[in-house]
């Protein structure tokens, strides 16, 4: 039987948590390296490293000389002290900027460890920030995304998420669920006091929650686009000039180009960034009834790519333009028909975008068209942030609960709303057992 419990907050206040240290910048030689220290012992450790570190005047950079425990000079460093709770982790912290030599970094970290700190585990600073309420789980997830961001949009999205834009949406939804539940719970536990559920308002609030979830779920596709890139697939008959376009857009000779139809057999992929958004460009085999089994397989794969695509760029050889009717060219959100080899055209091409990889005609316009379509769902997010798959899964679960609750008795409905709320708590990594009762007592005048 386990009988002892850590007393939570009081253990923190009494200095129960240990102090951690780690190099914050990437390993390997570099001009500068940043070392972070966090925890209740920070002040004492700072004093040991150098008498010049003044923890009493925090948030101010200073230059100090660091020594090891036996007084040997280690390094001249720039330091910034932070005092709880105004720091990244919410604890006392010290940041030291030293030369990025492996020896220096190891020596400084080693000195701090032998003075009583512990090497931090990966992500531990962020974990402490979550534990101390400096950020929630959704924001913590963004920390890594900010670090990993390679395109402008990725960075923008991760930053917004870190700033809590997405968290706010989740929290607003969670609060709406709490209010919904409080009403039901109030009527279940305080019937004698005349608390009743206003059916009309309740249904409106329920619908409001579902609508909020749907708005958030729409951003999932956009999020995947921003995080992983949109798939833009080039299709067309053999020899239409697909591989040539592929190479032109990439600005390098990635695919083999030849005058023989059926040159490309396999699916080729390459990454490309269009105005800050990542795009995965795909070249495919020319579409026709192929007899050669290898080519036939290539055509099958091309068809599959067409299905997966976020955007299909269908290429028509200028020769076909003459035989096709105007209305056979499609220009929708997911499909863009264009005519290639415009330099060979004998007449003016109208009603459809025409490009030439030889002269460069129309290529910029094509890029613009692609961007317009790929960025549309991202733009639809209106500056908010996309939901990731973990969050989407929980949102879907919450939505399902809200759907069932129309047709059930109130004590069951409460269960459903509670499940929905739990899903939201999973997203935010929080759980406050008292919030429903808090809401009941603040909205109803109950009690004898």
């Amino acid at each position, binding site marked *: *039987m*386990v009988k002892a419990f850590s007393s939570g907050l009081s253990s923190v206040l009494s200095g129960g948590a240990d102090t951690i240290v780690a190099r914050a910048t990437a390993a390997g030689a570099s001009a500068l390296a940043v070392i972070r220290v966090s925890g209740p012992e920070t002040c004492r450790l700072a004093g040991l490293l150098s008498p010049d570190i003044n923890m009493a005047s925090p948030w101010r950079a200073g230059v100090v000389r660091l020594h090891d425990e036996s007084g040997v000079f280690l390094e001249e460093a720039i330091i910034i002290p932070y005092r709880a709770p105004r720091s990244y982790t919410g604890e006392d912290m010290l940041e030291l900027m030293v030369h990025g030599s492996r020896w220096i970094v190891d020596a400084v970290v080693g000195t701090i460890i032998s003075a009583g700190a512990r090497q931090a585990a990966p992500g531990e600073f962020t*974990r402490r920030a979550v534990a101390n309420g400096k950020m929630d*789980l959704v924001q913590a997830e963004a920390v890594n995304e900010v670090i990993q961001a390679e395109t402008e949009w990725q960075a923008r999205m991760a930053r917004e998420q870190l700033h809590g834009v997405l968290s706010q949406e989740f929290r607003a939804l969670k609060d709406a669920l709490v209010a919904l539940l409080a009403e039901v719970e109030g009527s279940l536990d305080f019937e004698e006091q005349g608390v009743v559920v206003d059916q009309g308002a309740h249904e409106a609030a329920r619908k409001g929650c579902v609508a909020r979830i749907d708005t958030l779920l729409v951003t999932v596709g956009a999020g995947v686009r921003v995080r992983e890139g949109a798939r833009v697939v080039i299709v067309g008959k053999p020899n239409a000039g697909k591989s040539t376009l592929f190479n032109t857009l990439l600005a390098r000779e990635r695919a083999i180009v030849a005058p023989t139809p059926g040159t490309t057999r396999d699916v080729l992929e390459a990454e490309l960034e269009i105005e800050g958004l990542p795009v995965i460009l795909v070249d495919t085999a020319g579409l026709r009834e192929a007899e050669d089994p290898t080519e036939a397989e290539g055509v099958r794969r091309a068809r599959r790519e067409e299905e997966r695509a976020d955007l299909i760029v269908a290429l028509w050889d200028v020769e076909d333009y003459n035989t096709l009717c105007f209305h056979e060219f499609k220009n929708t959100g997911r499909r863009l028909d264009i005519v290639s080899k415009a330099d060979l055209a004998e007449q003016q091409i109208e009603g459809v975008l025409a490009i030439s990889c030889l002269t460069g005609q129309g290529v910029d316009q094509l890029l613009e068209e692609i961007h317009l379509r790929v960025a549309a769902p991202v733009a639809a997010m209106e500056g908010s942030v996309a939901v990731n798959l973990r969050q989407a899964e929980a949102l879907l679960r919450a939505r399902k609960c809200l759907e069932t609750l129309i047709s059930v*008795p109130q004590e069951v409905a409460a269960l459903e709303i509670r499940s929905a709320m739990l899903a939201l708590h*999973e997203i935010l990594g929080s759980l406050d*057992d008292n919030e429903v009762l808090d809401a009941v*007592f603040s909205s109803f005048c109950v009690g004898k």
Partner: protein
Amino acid sequence: MVKTWDVVVVGAGHAGIESAMAAARMGATVCVVTLHKETIGQMPCNPAAGGIGKGHLVAELDALGGIQGWAVDRAGIQFRRLNSSRGPAVWGPRAQCDKERYSIMMRRLLARTQGITVIEGEANRILFERGRATGVGLAGGTRVCGRSVILTTGTFLGGVLHTGDDRREGGRFGERPSVGLGENLREMGLELRRFKTGTPPRLDRNSLDYTKLEIQEGDHSPQPFSWRTQAVVNRAVCWVGRTPERVREIIEENLDRSPLFGGRIDGVGPRYCPSIEDKVVRFPHHKEHTVFLEPETLHGPSMYVNGLSTSLPADVQEKVVRAVPGFEKASFIRFGYAVEYDVVAPKQVAHDLQVSSVPGLYLAGQIMGTSGYEEAAALGFVAGVNAVASLWETEGLRLGREQAYIGVLVDDLVNREHREPYRMFTSRAEHRLLMGVDSARERLMSEGVRLGLVPMGVFHVEQARWEKRRRVIEELEAGAVVPDHLTQDRLHKSLGFELRTPTTWAGILRRQDVDQEHAAAMAPGLGEMSAEDTAIIIGQLRYSGYIARHARERSRVERLRHIQIPADFSYRSIIGLSREVLEEMERLRPNTLAEAERLGGMTPAAMSLIAGRLSTMGRD
């Protein structure tokens, strides 16, 4: 030679009585030390027991072999089931009691129960023997020696009573507080907290105008709480009135004279028992507030004014009360007052209600931060059973959150932080659908039998009853109802709906739009069941889909719980785990998720984070 008891119980309120009775009936010798013999089993606040959530506690306690339900049945003068139009999971049986009769019965019960000795006196320190709490020292120097101690001192630790500016030390009206004991607990290193609660004025029954009040009668067929009771009858009525807007004005004018708003009270009061001054301040847009007038005894003059709890000065109380229609000429038997008192922060107590740092010392009732007779009684019972079980090295009583409200009560107290006095609500139970008052005996009576507190014969009778319900349910699920003309006609006539596809009687009874009574009259098997059992059966049918889903979720959790946690598992790699949980996990390193779940401070969110990390571990 000094006499030594197995268990020393301090206090003879609702907690102390159950502790003593459970321990003695399990065969232990018990010494009850209490301030006054004549206040044994007193109801210092409202003259009622049960309600929504609280009624669940009484029913469960009764199924386990506790005695509160038995006493309420006998002292009860009006019985009502709250939430009766809803499903059985949230029924809340409640009874108005004759306080004097209740208290007299409890006094007699303790006196005639073998193994119990009652001593009058004030315990002011805990006695130790080889590091274990074994007895108490009384003011005056007497030592009461035993082998373990249960403290159930209610609102008496450092108690201070307030009525307006009048501030005097006391445990409750007319009784002195207990000062030394609190100091002693503090010296032992226990963390104490200050709470507050209040009670309304009592009015003379003969000074009120009932033509301006609404009558509130008991149920048509009142149901007893206890398996020991055959039947109960209603003997009294209650009355409902409303405070006019004028009351707000009176209170606002005098707010500076309220000890609550004037800053003379530091203790934290329960939001679910707000004083009238609280209500007026917090809900200024409410024009009127309901008050319930409840007789304190069957024949005596005292009427309890439920809804007017207050600690305003006496002259303001008079103005407020006399502003209420019907109370214009009210004469006061006693003024309302608030009491501030110390409680032991309950996190220092383990699930068996033993203080973690003091072996042999148990707490129960209001001393550990609860409020209410039912909460106190339930905890008293658990402490009494566990104190004896630990002495005899037998299995004690540990109920799960999915098993009983009593399990929820203990678990909440022991594991969570509490900012105000704790009272039971059904919303605290995440397994509410499984834990209706109707299923209390089915859930818990076997435990009562195991402890030797419920006779086997009683258990068999009960068992037959729920077996029979189960058979009827099977029958209702099995037999098909085919929509031929005759059936359609019958259903349409009596139930008002058309049946198009074949179904079962269970299917028909589950429909929300079906009138229960009419349907029950037509369905096979239900005819021979009592109205009570029929309602329970229909409730079970309606919940069954959800209970099944719940069970599925639980079995998924159950499977998860058997997942092994590697010895070198890095809890630090989980972002979002609270520091509290993390430290606990690293210190104790549970082997399975099931073990992790039982540790202090564990929350569902933390469980899902750990489970999530474990399930992705195989992949990276």
